[in-house]
């Protein structure tokens, strides 16, 4: 059986890809390198402003930065996708340093993590960036920028540019095209333009695409009292409640949790666009699945308990639980709201994959997942005996579902965590998987 040379076996290569055993098998062609360099230059401008702590000539600087990033993205799309026939192009995903937990992956991870740490706890270090974005903020919202406007704008730019990249990468796939337009639209309009315009019109800054418990503040008495001041705010408060109690079960019954997670949600939007180059880094082991189930439902319980305590405190005339409920809220806000969803959730994209937060932490995903698992028409069906156990589906599942384990037995896949991105079906070389509802 085979040659006698058994120097390297699958076991020996447990933790090593062929790239490590045989260095750099795939060279990024020079045009793609130029594209990446342009994008990196745009990012570098931001980094300089960030480090300098002040922005000289903010308008030209911001335009130059965004322009460079856009040009880099478009050049990359043209070279990597448009110059080749449409099809699955994951070549070298496990060879490239940036997408295979190499040096560049770590650099990017540290960079994003550092940004989130500043954003949540040391906004004074973002002074330069805040100055840089102030003209844009004045234009949109008629007020100076703060760190959240900087964050929201950069987030939207990432979804938009990487959304364009994703759209052309999967231009042969109608499901991916339409889904990407949807997820970019929701970010652009409901999570950036509309809140900005509302601020301009002296209305409450409302993000209609987020609900409690993902947007954990929105279920609290503080949010309710704030919203009492305007009709729109009050509407949003009850709209959020309705989405949780009625919208989620009904929509999930008909469409699966994807109606939210991979079509609407901003966290999902970033994961599906900017996170796409890292989707294969998710852990597919049974152990990871066990951790997932413990963690995500614990966070949901945590969110429910936190909100309930705050309301009980209000109901009891703030006599018994005042201190306790507030510190509970602060703990949640620090641990889950900032550290988990932001720092780990996005900062660790290049290390753990793009859906760490959605898979292990998001209480909304937990709630949607319960409905998807227990009461939904949505499933991924498998096509008879056509599976060849190749593992592309599992490898590219951002949620770390071992899709192959089901497909090779010809079983339907009904999993709480599946966000319905449809990539398993797209990368399957034998046409075995289909999302159905």
């Amino acid at each position, binding site marked *: *059986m085979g040659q006698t040379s058994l120097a390297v076996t699958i076991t020996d290569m447990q933790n090593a890809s062929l790239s490590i055993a045989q260095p750099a098998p795939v060279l990024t062609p020079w045009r793609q390198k130029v594209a990446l360099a342009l994008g990196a230059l745009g990012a570098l401008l931001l980094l300089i402003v960030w480090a300098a702590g002040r922005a000289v000539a903010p308008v030209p600087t911001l335009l130059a930065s965004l322009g460079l990033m856009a040009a880099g993205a478009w050049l990359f799309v043209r070279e990597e996708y448009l110059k080749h026939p449409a099809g699955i192009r994951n070549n070298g995903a496990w060879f490239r340093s940036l997408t295979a937990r190499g040096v560049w992956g770590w650099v990017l991870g540290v960079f994003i993590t550092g940004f989130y740490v500043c954003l949540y706890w040391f906004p004074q270090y973002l002074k330069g960036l805040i100055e840089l974005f102030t003209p844009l903020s004045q234009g949109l919202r008629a007020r100076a920028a703060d760190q959240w406007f900087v964050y929201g704008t950069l987030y939207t730019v990432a979804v938009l540019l990487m959304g364009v990249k994703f759209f052309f990468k999967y231009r042969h796939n109608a499901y991916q095209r*339409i889904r990407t337009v949807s997820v970019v639209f929701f970010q652009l309009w409901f999570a950036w333009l509309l809140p900005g315009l509302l601020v301009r019109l002296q209305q409450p800054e409302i993000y209609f695409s987020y609900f409690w418990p993902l947007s954990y503040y929105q279920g609290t008495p503080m949010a309710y009292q704030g919203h009492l001041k305007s009709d729109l705010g009050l509407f949003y408060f009850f709209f959020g409640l309705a989405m949780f109690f009625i919208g989620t079960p009904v929509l999930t019954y008909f469409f699966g949790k994807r109606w939210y997670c991979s079509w609407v949600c901003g966290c999902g939007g970033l994961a599906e666009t900017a996170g796409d180059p890292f989707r294969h880094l998710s852990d597919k082991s049974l152990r990871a699945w066990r951790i997932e189930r413990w963690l995500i439902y614990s966070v949901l319980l945590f969110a429910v308990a936190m909100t309930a305590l705050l309301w009980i405190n209000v109901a009891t005339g703030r006599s018994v639980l005042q201190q306790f409920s507030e510190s509970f809220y602060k703990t949640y806000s620090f641990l889950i709201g900032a550290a988990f969803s932001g720092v780990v959730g996005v900062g660790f994209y290049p290390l753990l994959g793009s859906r760490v937060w959605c898979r292990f932490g998001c209480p909304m995903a937990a709630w949607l997942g319960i409905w998807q698992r227990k009461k939904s028409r949505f499933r991924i069906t498998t096509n008879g005996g056509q599976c060849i156990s190749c593992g592309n589906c599992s490898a590219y599942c951002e949620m770390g579902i071992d899709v192959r384990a089901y497909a090779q037995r010809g079983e339907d896949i009904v999993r709480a965590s599946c966000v319905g991105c449809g990539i398993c079906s797209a990368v399957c070389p034998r046409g075995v998987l289909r999302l159905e509802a």
Partner: protein
Amino acid sequence: MALKNAAIPFMRIVIIGNGVAGITAARHIRKRSDHSILVISDETDYFFSRTALMYVYMGHMRPQDLKPYEDWFWAKNRIELLRARVVAIDFEGKTLQTSDGRSLPYDRLILATGSKSNKFGWPGQDLDGVQGLYHWQDLESMERHSRGLQRAVIVGGGLIGIEMAEMFHSRGIPVTFLVRESSFWNNVLPAEESAMINRHILEHGIDLRLSTELREILPDAQGKCRAVLTSHGEEIACGFVGLTVGVSPNVDFLRNTPLEIGRGIRVDEYLQTNLPDVYAIGDCAELRQPPPGRRPIEAVWYSARAMGETVARILYGEPTPYDPGIWFNSAKFFDIEYQVYGNVPPALPPEVETLYWEHPDGRKSIRINYDRASGAVLGFNLMGVRYRHHVCDHWLRQGTHIETVLENLGAANFDPEFYPQHEAELVALYNRQTGQTLRLKRRRGLSLLRKIGM
């Protein structure tokens, strides 16, 4: 869980080969019995998906991603794995000898030794840089030869040849593809589909040479291949030659034993060899009497898997003859997926009528063959379109009339949501060709399948 069959006493089952045939057998035996199971392989420590080797080379997956089961699976299911090469079998004494000097007894022996790549005696075929692609070690060898490679020549217009072309192409290594036939894989594909793949290969910038054979591989001073000479007398410089001209059963070490061997290990419908308690499955098995329409040796993932299940049933005490069912297969030619259900021969027999629809972009097609006299459907050939296995299989088994099939064709569509559906175009084409006035009654959907009871 293990449902023990009281009639079957405890046995020590040894399986040679950890490919899909051997591993499927082991898993199914374990599900329904408490027999001791030992799987021996010289190739790798763990089962991996052979069909996915290309994706490791292309960087889509890591080697460990090819393993369909995590490493703890085997101990948990009491399937013992041994990395060794079997050098001799004493069929009388029911004992195996391994290359590391072990002597292993068995009560039942399953031979699942797979294939080896064909070589047809070309001058230079054993030079450094000349190889096929079947084993894990072949992939390692390809990797070693890829560094600094200026051009690869691939010989043989079949499934592995086009995979190899895609592999090198993914790394920007120029490929010359020598195909003996006048059109790609036209000994299997009908002319239109074959032509579509020719166009697609060229679209990817592959140097496709149809009606061209390999005459000789030329060495350099170090004994490495430096060029090939084609049947047209052309010399093409290359540092690598892929020989992808099919495979044959890996049975050489079993020749000159009491085991009856033709091209492969001869087995009956219960996959039993001429020797008691010895079975052969997968690529290495040659059926003495293949089911109608099937070949004696089918080096195909699906047949190997079905044989593994069959031999398991025999060993846990519910024997049924090997029944691979209606033929199906699949492949992917660069970006074009291919599925076939039933019988779609390359040349149309006189009693068969064909309905062939091709998308104007020339990258998708649907072909349905049916019996001219009875109208019964005989086969489906899909390019760039996914059809449902169960539905096609059901129609083919029933011999459903072509017009019933066409009216309900939506039930077969398995393309992702929002994809254009072409079933109505097929019906219109049929109407134009026959003067009928059929209408498409059903579009696809899960609820639809429930309605028709599938």
